[in-house]
């Protein structure tokens, strides 16, 4: 497939719309803060920002570099954000799924949030420089399989006519299928090489909206279930535990994979688990607020063909 550009002209209109809305919200006193994106020093780059007054509304932007899932700032893991009133948050469809999950897990209340939804044509892959044009090559893998370009159930969504986009290859599905076709020994060799790179910086954990535990199992040393040192053994255990703890909760914002400084394809594990849970229990995370997930509930008729 040849590389085709993706039309991001709507982002200019969206930026203007969220600035106006942000300004209105502060002026009307409806919210105390907005978690959004602002431009950064590097050309084309954007970074998360938390603004608390109408004057700062002009700093808000939305571009193809607005990759972060800002939901992480609303979890109890982030104690620095003021939580003394209603908070506005800029969400793409994928980010919204995380908020939906957090509401289901009683971490957030819908009435405490003002959701500013972004009609999103896609964001840049972590491998692309921030100033790169968005194309079928440079787009993030998660965007290729996106089913939430238009976030639903938000308080405000800029009204935009979506330009038709090019057909995108499903990279995760293809890669999962490739790995599934290998022998266990080949898969083990693949993951061993990937996990060997891990330096235990825990960026994958720190950006994950669902890693909000006050103390991570992997930070505990009595008992020490997972070795803390960045060696192949402890790394493998860590990534298995991480994938298991996110199974049935992760809705695929792919932040873990984006932030990994060693480029470990972490979202493959999450997508694989999501696929299996869909097949086993017909469950998909992120679409509606459920107070139980696939691994916190059961039916008496669940498959037990693997049990003697």
């Amino acid at each position, binding site marked *: 497939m040849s590389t085709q550009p993706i039309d991001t002209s709507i982002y200019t209109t969206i930026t203007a719309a969220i600035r106006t809305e942000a300004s209105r919200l502060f002026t009307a006193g409806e919210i105390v803060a907005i978690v959004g994106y602002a431009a950064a020093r590097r050309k084309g780059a954007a970074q998360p920002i938390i603004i608390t007054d109408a004057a700062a509304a002009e700093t808000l932007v939305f571009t193809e570099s607005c990759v972060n899932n800002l939901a992480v700032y609303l979890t109890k893991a982030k104690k620095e954000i003021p939580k003394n009133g209603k908070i506005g948050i800029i969400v793409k469809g994928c980010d919204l799924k995380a908020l939906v999950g957090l509401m289901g897990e009683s971490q957030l209340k819908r009435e405490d949030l003002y959701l500013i939804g972004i009609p999103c044509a896609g964001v840049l892959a972590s491998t692309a420089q921030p100033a790169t044009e968005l194309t079928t090559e440079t787009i993030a893998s998660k965007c290729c399989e996106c089913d939430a370009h238009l976030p639903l159930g938000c308080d405000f969504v800029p009204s935009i006519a979506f330009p038709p986009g090019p057909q995108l290859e499903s990279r995760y599905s293809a890669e999962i299928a490739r790995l599934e076709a290998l022998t266990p020994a080949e*898969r083990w060799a693949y993951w061993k090489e990937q996990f060997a790179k891990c330096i235990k910086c825990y960026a994958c954990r720190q950006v994950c909206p669902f890693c909000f535990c006050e103390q991570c199992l992997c930070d505990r040393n009595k008992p020490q279930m997972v070795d803390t040192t960045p060696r192949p053994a402890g790394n493998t*255990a860590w990534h298995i535990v991480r994938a298991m703890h996110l199974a049935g909760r992760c809705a695929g914002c792919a932040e873990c994979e984006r932030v990994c400084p060693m480029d470990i394809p972490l979202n493959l594990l999450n997508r694989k*688990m999501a696929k299996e849970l869909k097949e086993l229990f017909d469950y998909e995370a992120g679409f509606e607020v459920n107070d139980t997930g696939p*691994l916190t509930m059961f039916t008496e008729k669940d498959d037990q063909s693997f*049990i003697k």
Partner: protein
Amino acid sequence: MDNTIKHDFEPKIIAFVCTWCTYAGADLAGTSRMQYPANVRVLKFPCTGRIDPVFILKAFQQGADGVLVSGCHPGDCHYIAGNFHARRRFAAFRKLLEFIGVDLNRLQFSWVSAAEGGKWVEVVTDLTEKVRTMGPMVEFKELALEEQWSGAIDTPELREAYDAI
């Protein structure tokens, strides 16, 4: 009387069992003087619902060649639904391990009630013999000896330990 057969490889099997059913079943096998392989090391838990997947991982990391998880039959759980939750969790965990490249023949789940001493013997014997033919679980043991390149000291002692797996 020693009627055991000598094998070249004696696998280490770790069994995580619930105290109410499978542990009692294993106990029954013992008091009934049934024979089963001594390869199995039993760890008793209140319920299969208490058996965290990380325990299985830890067992493999510490040198287990095979792992058995066993508890009450569906509907018989002392805590009503612990084994139903466990069933889902392990269904998911198996898929993850498989994707990472662990051979699932080394991991067995079973329901063994307090009255099923015979089934306990059968499950344990089957798993032990299956793992015996598969040979040692080298993957996790190799991993435990590996370092990041910068920390590696490739000494003869380390090489010897590696070859000994």
